[in-house]
C-alpha cells in the first residue's frame, strides 16, 4: 500500500539551530513533492515544491532535498525562530490517480528561545 511517513514525535529545538524534518514514502513514483506549514486552527500553507529531477531547492531559510532512490525528502529550516513553530506536512501525488495530493500526518516543530 502507499504510505507517506513523517516523524510522529514532535521535534524540539533551540532557537538559532537548524531543524531537519523527514518525509519517507513507499509505493509512489512522484513527479513532485510538496511541503506545507500548518498552524493550529488554520489551513495548510504551501511552502516549497521540488521536482523528481531536482536534488535540492532553497527558499530563504528553507531547504528541501529529494532523493528518489531512498524515497525520502528532507526539509531544513536554518537559523530557526520561535515563529517557525508549527506542524509541517509533506505531500505527494499517487502515481495512478494523478488528480489529488496525498498528505503525510505531519511533524510538529517547537522552537524554543
Amino acid at each position, binding site marked *: 500500500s502507499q504510505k507517506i511517513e513523517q516523524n510522529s514525535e514532535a521535534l524540539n529545538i533551540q532557537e538559532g539551530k537548524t531543524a531537519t524534518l523527514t518525509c519517507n514514502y513507499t509505493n509512489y513514483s512522484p*513527479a513532485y513533492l510538496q511541503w506545507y506549514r500548518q498552524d493550529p486552527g488554520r489551513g495548510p500553507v*504551501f511552502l516549497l515544491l521540488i521536482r523528481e529531477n531536482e536534488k535540492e531547492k532553497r527558499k530563504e531559510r528553507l531547504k528541501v532535498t529529494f532523493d528518489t532512490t531512498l524515497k525520502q525528502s528532507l526539509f531544513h529550516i536554518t537559523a530557526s525562530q520561535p515563529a517557525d513553530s508549527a506542524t509541517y506536512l509533506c505531500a505527494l501525488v499517487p502515481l495512478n490517480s494523478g488528480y489529488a495530493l496525498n498528505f503525510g500526518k505531519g511533524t510538529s516543530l517547537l522552537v524554543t528561545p
Partner: protein
Amino acid sequence: DAGITQSPRHKVTETGTPVTLRCHQTENHRYMYWYRQDPGHGLRLIHYSYGVKDTDKGEVSDGYSVSRSKTEDFLLTLESATSSQTSVYFCAISPQAEHSIGYTFGSGTRLTVV
C-alpha cells in the same frame, strides 16, 4: 485565506441530519478538493472536482456527496451525519492538475456531530 472561503466556520449538528458545507473561490481555479483532518490520520481526500459538474471520489468518500454547478462553488454534503464524521473539513484549490504549484487551502470548517 485569500481567494477561498469556507462556510460555516463552525457547526454542531445532530446525528442523522443532512449537512452542507460550502467552499467558495474567487481565483477561477479549475480544481477543487475536500479533505478532512483528524488526529492520527492527517489530511484525507474526500472528493475532488476537475471542472464544473466533473467530480470524483477520494479515499474516504462514503457518506459524502459533492456538487459543483459553478466554477467558484464546491459543496460537500453529509447525507445523514454520523458521529464518525465529526472532523475539521478543509477545501483546497489548484489551477492545474500537474501539481507543479501548491494548493491554496481554506481556513476550515469544524463540524461536530452529536
